[in-house]
């Protein structure tokens, strides 16, 4: 799960303070693992260094929480690329996928497309495994099956999410 | 007990269900069973109809003896009018307190007449034009139901003042009905006939209770799944079929009372009846009311004995158990043995013991439905199926030929019975037709006036008749022979004799002996004839035997050879011109003025012959009966076929989807219906013909085959097969539509 992309995505809605960003992130993605301030500021400074965000003014007062950050064009392109690149199918990537779907919805992009891209990637991997299974011995088959069942679980989640995208959109936009 | 009732009630509730489907199923069952019940009720009404009929017949018998002078004189008269028979009494009322016959409220005065409704209608119609001259009297009323044997009877009571007392006194009407009435063997035969005809009805009721059985089995299996014990499921199932049976009873009584008013319109007189008399006897009604629900419950329980055990309703298609043959052959073998043992035992003189014959027939008939399931199974197992359609049908029948075999078993009994009866009829008819053939060259009216009648007047009147070419006087006498036989004697010139019998080279001075229907010559030279009326004896001189049998056998004597013979009565032989249509009716009209004083009998080719008329009636009744039962059987087959299409919706839909042409599927349905029917028809024809030959042999008569009748029945069976299949096609079409692919 890439915190940097998530923060960039959140900034697409408009410039924010670092503190705002942390709160928005925790609210949407950090249910069980909220971000530390340190993570937020180290990430932001990395993004700043790479030219993906800029400082958009400082309010009266002192300290980093007074700085407002805005996304740059390069940043938008980066988010774009991230969303349209499927994750490497592997176990436990729901967090990332979920974040992608929510951010796509938040930014008015097609969440279904994100999901479809991902399912296609999953199926390609599954095909690969299925082919290997056909040629391999029993041990290969069992190992491939393990992976296949996990991927299938992911795919089922993708299906379910795709079926509920409209409901999710309504909730996210509220 | 409470549990039993509540389980039954649950079954009824499941049957009524509330959904449209379950109502439709109940309605179908109701109509199916109802048709059967209505037929049974009509059959149950037969005793009352027959009783009432014989009551009325007895009530119009003449009481000829009484005290004092005769109050009423009656002359019975009956004659043919084309193919109908008109009969009635000419009455001369001598005293005002003379007894009035049943059906009319007073006696007709001179020149008055009471007509039966059917006769009145005939006289009014254009068809009756040639009959009208015979009834110039003034119509003063109609004969009521009490005076008629059946609603179509052509009956009259006419007043005629010129009847003289001559052993024709009437002191009253109505005699005590003879106890027993029917001859016990005849009664037994009728019972056998009824059972044979009702068998398919029972089969049909059984089939109707099994409508939508697959669905019901699933439903009951679900009940098993939630924990109902097998015995309770049986109760619930009984409740379900009970609902259908009760609906059927209600519908049946409805149909019965709806159809009843029309029974007087049946065109066959002997079958028509007064609606008010068509009332099932209480005992038989009760039997129907009890038997139908019991039959419904028993058949459904029997049919479910395999499915009821499986809670999941998944009855795997097992290889069916092969039927065993030995006990199925028992009734057939015993029946044939009984009949064969009687061959030759019955001769002209000996009175036969008819019980073995009747039992043999019954056993043979019952043997058909018993043997048929085994036979269908064997035949079907030997078949492999040439075309895919045939293969589908054969395989289907191999899995379950029982249902179809049971249905067609009922048909087979009827067909066999019909074929046998037709053969027996054909045997008798052949003789009649032989006579007809002999008479084909004749066309004459034999007129027998009363002793007292004005002979020359009648002769003169006849001479003026349209189509009459000659009027010969024939003197007749009647005598007994020493050997116990009787002989009729006709004295007339050759011109007249050759009209009555085929006498070649007739010469005056000769005596001809025409063979009787038994094949014996009427008399031989040297026989002594004792005349019935005068008691005089006469020795038969040289006679010439005329070959060919005839029902007008007797001695035909030319005038020159008749010296010393005193005839007792005279009659006229009226030669008719065969080119003039209805010449006989014109001749009868010519002597209409002598109404009750003459009897006439037409000789020649026509359809008024009494025997032929009876044959016609029996044959039509037989045909109607077998047609009706065949229809019922076809309905049963239809139900079975529809049910099978429903059950096999899924495979049918998949086959259609995979490109199996609908025609192939339709043909497989056709084969599926045709195979059992063909087998049963073959069996019933074989049994019928075999039985016919045996029975005819037993009675020592000549074997004749009614190929036309057999062909007709076979044709009807073929037609029904197509009709049933055609009626299944819409449901096949629905099943094979793409929607059939969607899982339920």
């Amino acid at each position, binding site marked *: 799960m890439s915190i940097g992309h998530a923060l960039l995505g959140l900034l697409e809605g408009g410039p924010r303070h670092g503190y705002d960003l942390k709160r928005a992130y925790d609210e949407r993605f950090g249910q069980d693992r909220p971000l530390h301030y340190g993570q937020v500021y180290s990430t932001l400074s990395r993004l700043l260094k790479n030219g993906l965000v800029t400082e958009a003014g400082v309010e009266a007062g002192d300290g980093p929480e007074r700085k407002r950050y805005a996304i740059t064009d390069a940043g938008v392109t980066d988010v774009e690329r991230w969303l349209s690149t499927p994750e490497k199918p592997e176990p436990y990537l729901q967090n990332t996928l979920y974040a992608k779907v929510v951010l796509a919805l938040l930014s008015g992009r097609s969440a279904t497309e994100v999901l*479809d891209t991902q*399912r*296609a990637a*999953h*199926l*390609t991997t*599954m*095909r690969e*495994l*299925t082919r290997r299974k*056909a040629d391999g011995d029993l041990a290969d088959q069992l190992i491939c099956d393990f992976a*296949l*069942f996990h*991927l*299938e679980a992911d*795919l*089922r989640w993708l*299906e379910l999410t*795709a*079926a509920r995208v409209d409901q999710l959109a309504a909730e996210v936009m509220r | 007990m409470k549990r039993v009732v509540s389980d039954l009630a649950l079954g009824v509730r499941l049957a009524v269900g509330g959904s449209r489907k379950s109502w439709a199923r109940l309605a179908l069952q109701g109509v199916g069973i109802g048709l059967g019940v209505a037929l049974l009720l009509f059959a149950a009404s037969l005793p009352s109809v027959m009783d009432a009929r014989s009551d009325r017949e007895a009530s119009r018998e003449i009481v000829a003896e009484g005290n004092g002078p005769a109050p009423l004189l009656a002359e019975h008269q009956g004659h043919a009018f084309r193919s109908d028979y008109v009969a009635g009494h000419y009455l001369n009322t001598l005293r005002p307190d003379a007894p009035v016959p049943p059906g009319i409220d007073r006696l007709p005065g001179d020149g008055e007449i009471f007509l039966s409704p059917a006769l009145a209608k005939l006289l009014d119609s254009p068809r009756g034009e040639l009959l009208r001259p015979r009834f110039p009297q003034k119509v003063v009323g109609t004969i009521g139901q009490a005076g008629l044997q059946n609603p179509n009877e052509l009956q009259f009571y006419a007043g005629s003042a010129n009847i003289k007392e001559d052993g024709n006194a009437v002191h009253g009407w109505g005699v005590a009905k003879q106890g027993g009435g029917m001859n016990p063997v005849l009664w037994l035969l009728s019972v056998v006939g009824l059972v044979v005809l009702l068998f398919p009805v029972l089969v049909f009721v059984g089939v109707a209770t099994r409508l939508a059985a697959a669905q019901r089995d699933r439903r009951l299996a679900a009940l098993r799944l939630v924990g109902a014990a097998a015995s309770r499921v049986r109760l619930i199932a009984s409740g379900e079929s009970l609902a259908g049976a009760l609906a059927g009873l209600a519908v049946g009584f409805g149909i019965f009372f709806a159809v009843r008013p029309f029974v007087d319109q049946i065109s066959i007189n002997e079958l028509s009846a007064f609606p008010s008399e068509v009332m099932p006897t209480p005992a038989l009604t009760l039997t129907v009311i009890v038997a139908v629900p019991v039959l419904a419950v028993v058949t459904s329980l029997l049919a479910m004995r395999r499915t009821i055990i499986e809670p999941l309703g998944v009855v*795997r*298609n*097992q290889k069916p158990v092969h039927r065993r043959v030995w006990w199925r052959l028992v009734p057939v073998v015993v029946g044939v043995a009984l009949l064969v043992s009687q061959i030759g035992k019955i001769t002209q003189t000996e009175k036969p013991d008819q019980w073995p014959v009747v039992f043999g027939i019954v056993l043979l008939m019952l043997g058909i439905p018993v043997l048929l399931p085994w036979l269908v199974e064997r035949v079907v197992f030997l078949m*492999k199926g*040439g*075309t*895919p359609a045939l*293969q*589908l049908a054969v*395989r*289907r029948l*191999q*899995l379950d030929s029982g249902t179809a075999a049971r249905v067609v078993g009922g048909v087979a009994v009827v067909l066999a019975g019909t074929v046998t009866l037709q053969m027996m009829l054909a045997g008798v008819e052949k003789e009649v037709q032989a006579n007809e053939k002999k008479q084909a060259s004749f066309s004459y009216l034999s007129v027998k006036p009363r002793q007292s009648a004005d002979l020359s007047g009648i002769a003169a009147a006849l001479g003026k008749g349209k189509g009459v070419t000659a009027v010969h006087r024939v003197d007749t006498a009647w005598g007994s022979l020493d050997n116990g036989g009787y002989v009729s004697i006709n004295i007339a010139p050759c011109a007249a004799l050759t009209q009555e019998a085929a006498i070649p080279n007739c010469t005056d001075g000769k005596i001809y002996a025409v063979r009787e229907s038994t094949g014996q010559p009427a008399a031989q030279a040297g026989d002594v004839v004792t005349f019935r009326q005068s008691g005089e004896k006469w020795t038969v001189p040289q006679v010439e035997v005329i070959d060919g049998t005839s029902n007008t056998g007797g001695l035909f004597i030319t005038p020159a050879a008749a010296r010393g013979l005193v005839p007792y009565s005279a009659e006229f032989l009226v030669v008719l011109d065969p080119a003039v249509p209805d010449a006989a009716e014109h001749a009868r009209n010519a002597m209409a003025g002598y109404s009750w004083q003459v009897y006439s009998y037409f000789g020649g080719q026509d359809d008024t012959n009494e025997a032929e008329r009876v044959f016609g009636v029996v044959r039509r009744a037989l045909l109607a009966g077998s047609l009706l039962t065949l229809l019922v059987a076809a309905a049963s087959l239809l139900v079975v076929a529809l049910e099978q299409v429903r059950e*096999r919706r*899924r*495979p049918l839909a*998949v*086959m*259609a*989807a*995979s*490109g*199996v*042409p*609908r025609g*192939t599927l339709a043909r497989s349905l056709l084969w599926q219906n045709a195979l059992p029917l063909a087998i049963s028809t073959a069996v019933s024809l074989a049994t019928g013909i075999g039985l016919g030959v045996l029975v005819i042999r037993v009675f020592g008569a000549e074997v004749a085959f009614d190929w036309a009748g057999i062909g007709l029945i076979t044709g009807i069976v073929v037609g029904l097969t197509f009709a049933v299949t055609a009626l299944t096609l819409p449901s096949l079409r629905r099943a094979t539509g*793409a*929607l059939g*692919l*969607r*899982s339920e």
Partner: protein
Amino acid sequence: MSLLRAEGLSKSFGKTHALEDAGITIRAGEVVAVMGPSGSGKSTLLHCLAGILPPDRGTVHYRDHFGSDRELTAMNDGERSELRRTEFGFVFQFGQLVPELTCLENVALPLRLSGMKRKNAERAARDWLARLEVDGVADQRPGETSGGQGQRVAIARALVTGPKVIFADEPTGALDSLNGERVMHLLTTAARETGAAVVLVTHEPRVAAYSDREVVVRDGRSRDVEFAR
């Protein structure tokens, strides 16, 4: 070059719109999975594609044995029946075998319908049963076999005529994982060996994984998802 091509297909059942402007292209010899949630119109798409169901709108084109283009949607019922019998094969989830015929006769049936002699048809059928490892049940009725055996018999029947396209609608729907895997393996292997294309309707990703690519149907619309192998 496309073997089977559908464009703008729409089909309604009463008020339910099962398909709306759906399209799909099948190339010779490829295995295409049609996926989507239940009620999305997968089966309807298959039925229209195979000429079982005439669509309300849209066209289906098929390139037959001789390479000539034929429009399924312009054919009458009899022509479509014949096409299905000679060029297509079908495998459904259940209930497709004629219960009263033996397995061998079931497989021989399509050949006999095309006029082949019984003996030859049954010899060919026996070969196919052996290939799908179910020659042991040849003389049993479908009701006496297990679900997996029944499906393999069904596949043998679908393949016996040497069809160009096999339509499989949830062929493993009634089977457990292991039997489902066997059936899919046998189906795709046999199809690849004979060069038949397979249109595979399924909602199970592991079954879809036997395909070369998938088409997703959602709310009656189809989306081709193309992937290079």
